[in-house]
């Protein structure tokens, strides 16, 4: 009994201390944030604010045609010895300008009007002598009883003996004649933004899917292999990548050049050959006992396919540049074909290189498995240590090479030149690795999957932590101001974000099907495609839409640092204090975000 009472009293004390601490923190916060309520209340500030809000409230949406009525009143520059006022009456309206002369741009003028229609408005226009252009010097708006007073100064002084003409233009009617230039620009840019976001979301999703598997704990923890497999995979990876990339580049070169006609014939030949390879000697899909022959046919088919894609790419370039000047309004279709073909040719070696890396690593893994099973213990241990030395050296060299490459960009100047030095260090690290590997048993299963999981997760988290704006700066420097920089940043951020979200989805799938498919003897990839993918596809699609919506918002921010789209236009408008224009853009962004938000929510609820 007593104990609980004590505990309760202790609790009270604790709460008080925490409250006090929070209060202290708050007090310090007030000092740090410089809270000063005087400044925002200053009349000048308030005036500025009101002006800004008024402009924002009148978005520059339309262009107008005005019906007007004009009256002329005269002005003198310089002033005669006895300055007077000018008066003018017409159709019940009376206008007085007093004084009716100026000597400098500081001299005040006062224009009064009476007998105007209630709330009538208009402008005062000066026709400078000897000039064909006119200048607006003041605006007026009558009150409820049709009177107004405006005070103004002249923007410039042109001295003449004659009277000068001030035109009082009263606005009778305003008709909307169409959309304003701002609106046109805004539509153009918001479309650009939506497309940027769309491309970034699709590309980001496609790349995030495989990455998310690597970042899913439940898929990765039981990926284990013996050390020999691991090291063989590491050693073969760069060879595979180089082979894939180089072969593709070579094939693309062979496919390039020549007339479109030649290209078409080549394409037909390739398709024919491909058909022959696929048909000849049984289906490629069967698990034929002649494994080597089968593998050879797959390889041949792959090479033919790559070559065919190269030909298609070049044909696309030709077709695109032929179409663009001929399609008129649809010229963007021609341009699209050209750009896509260009992308295909550019990215093909890259993806082939990746495929090469994957194939080589898989081959290395299998080879290592075989070796581990077949070799005697002593031989296996020897092989393991030798391979560890080479593998660690290769890995270290790759890391050092990357670091050095970054330094060559001028990020850090202290790094020594590449070459032998890197090689030496890598070999040394390799030997250290070999010594450490002495403690391993050849049959011991290394938890490679866990390492990959941790690495992928932390990389994704790191990328997510980098502000998109900062990335925007980097890519604007690299590829220049414009939508390309923004799109690249959005892609990277989408990959990081979706990669994490997707992997969490993968971790939440029902384990049962995974277990069942594994039990059939399926390999890792098959298990993923048959047991994991069907469970996650709807979520992935939903997230991809959600990401589109985020990308639209994010691209406006990246646009501020030069990433193209509506953000860039908005930044220009605000910098030029064109708040009416900015207002249009803000409204457009809000509308698009609201619509996308709604659409993506609908789609998500429909799919899941």
């Amino acid at each position, binding site marked *: 009994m007593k104990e609980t009472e004590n505990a309760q009293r202790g609790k009270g004390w604790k709460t008080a201390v925490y409250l006090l601490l929070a209060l202290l923190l708050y007090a310090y916060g007030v000092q740090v944030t410089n809270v000063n309520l005087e400044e925002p209340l200053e009349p000048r500030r308030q005036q500025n604010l009101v002006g800004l809000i008024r402009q924002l409230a009148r978005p520059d949406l339309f262009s107008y045609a005005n019906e007007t009525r004009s009256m002329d009143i005269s002005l003198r520059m310089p002033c005669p010895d006895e300055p007077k006022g000018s008066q003018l009456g017409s159709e019940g309206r009376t206008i007085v300008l007093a004084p009716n002369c100026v000597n400098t741009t500081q001299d005040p003028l006062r224009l009064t009007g009476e007998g105007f229609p209630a709330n009538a408005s208009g402008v005062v226009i000066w026709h400078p002598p000897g000039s064909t252009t006119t200048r607006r010097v003041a605006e007026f708006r009558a009150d409820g009883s049709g009177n107004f007073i405006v005070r103004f100064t002249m923007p410039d002084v042109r001295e003449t003996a004659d009277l000068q003409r001030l035109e009082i233009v009263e606005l009778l009617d305003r008709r909307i004649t169409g959309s304003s230039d701002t609106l046109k620009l805004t539509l153009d840019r918001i479309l650009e933004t939506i497309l940027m976001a769309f491309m970034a979301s699709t590309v980001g999703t496609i790349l995030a899917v495989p990455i998310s598997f690597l970042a899913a704990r439940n898929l990765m923890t039981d990926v284990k292999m013996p050390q020999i497999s691991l090291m063989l995979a590491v050693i073969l990876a760069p060879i595979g990548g180089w082979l894939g990339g180089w072969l593709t580049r070579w094939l693309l070169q062979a496919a390039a050049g020549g007339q479109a006609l030649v290209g078409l014939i080549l394409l037909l030949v390739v398709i024919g050959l491909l058909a022959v390879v696929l048909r000849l000697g049984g289906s490629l899909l069967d698990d034929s006992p002649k494994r080597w022959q089968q593998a050879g046919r797959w390889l041949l088919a792959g090479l033919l396919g790559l070559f065919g894609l190269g030909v298609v790419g070049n044909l696309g370039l030709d077709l695109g540049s032929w179409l663009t000047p001929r399609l008129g309004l649809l010229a963007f279709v021609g341009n699209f074909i050209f750009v896509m073909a260009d992308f295909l040719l550019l990215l093909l070696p890259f993806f082939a290189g990746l495929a090469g890396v994957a194939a080589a690593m898989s081959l290395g893994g*299998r080879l290592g498995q075989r070796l581990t099973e077949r070799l005697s213990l002593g031989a296996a241990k020897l092989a393991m240590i030798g391979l560890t030395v080479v593998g660690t050296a290769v890995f270290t060299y790759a890391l050092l090479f990357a670091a050095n490459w970054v330094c060559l960009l001028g990020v850090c100047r202290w790094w020594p030149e590449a070459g032998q030095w890197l090689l030496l260090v890598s070999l040394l690290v390799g030997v250290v690795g070999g010594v450490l590997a002495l403690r391993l048993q050849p049959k011991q299963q290394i938890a490679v999957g866990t390492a990959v999981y941790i690495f992928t997760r932390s990389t994704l988290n790191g990328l997510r932590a980098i502000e998109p704006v900062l990335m925007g700066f980097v890519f604007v420097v690299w590829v220049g101001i414009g939508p390309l920089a923004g799109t690249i940043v959005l892609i990277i951020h989408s990959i990081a974000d979706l990669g994490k979200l997707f992997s969490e989805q993968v971790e939440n799938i029902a384990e049962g099907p995974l277990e069942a498919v*594994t039990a*059939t003897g399926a390999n890792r990839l098959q298990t993923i495609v048959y*047991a994991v993918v069907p469970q996650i596809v709807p979520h992935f699609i939903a997230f991809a839409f959600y990401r589109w919506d985020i990308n639209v918002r994010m691209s406006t921010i990246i646009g501020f640092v030069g990433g193209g789209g509506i953000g860039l236009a908005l930044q220009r408008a605000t910098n030029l204090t064109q708040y009416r224009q900015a207002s249009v853009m803000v409204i457009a962004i809000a509308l698009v975000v609201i619509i996308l938000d709604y659409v993506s929510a609908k789609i998500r609820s429909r799919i899941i």
Partner: protein
Amino acid sequence: MLRVKNLTKVYEDGTVALKDVSFEVPAGEFVAVIGLSGSGKSTLLRCINRLIEPTSGEIWWDDVALSHITGEELRRARRRIGMIFQHFNLVDRSSVLRNVLSGRLGYVNPLASLLGRFPEADVARAYASLDRVGIRDKALNRADELSGGQRQRVGIARALMQEPEMILADEPVASLDPALAHSIMRHLQTINREDKITVLCSLHFLDLVQQYGTRAIALNAGELVFDGRPAEIDDQKFIDIYGREAERIG
């Protein structure tokens, strides 16, 4: 012939799920695995096809050391061992046909299967398997449109696709009502008799054990406490297996 020698499994949290379990199963038997829930039945079955790594001991299937093979060898062994689960473990969003075809993944060309292509012979085999369990007409339905009994039959068809020499069934009828349970058990019995497939099946109800098992082994807290014909389970044995509080109903 399946031989389990001194099999022990200790989970990472220290739970001893199997303690020095040894037994032999000649090919073609229908072995009922019984025991209270938590006695280690699932663990035992999953050690055999290595969904769970044994801590120590050996498992042999003829001359293959199931307990020690890895990689490619393990996959080749797994594809000859079908498995059926209490909760069916179908992929709900895939079609019945695709679920059944997935039983073939250990045999087909991996690359082609990733593209969703299966040899025609396998598609025909899938339809034949579905025919055998009587739900050929559901082939193109989504798996989650089927009832419990139908789903378990898909599970059996999937196992049949593997052309298995052994089927591990982990409480295959525990989530079904009794009438359905008998129908599923009869399918397993037919497979056991006609195809000469060894069946290891964990069961809850003694009447099912008596009716379908040609042999029974019992686990209690991870230890093998009975190995013999189902008919030999008398009242004393029953208490050994299920403990004193249990009441014999079967």
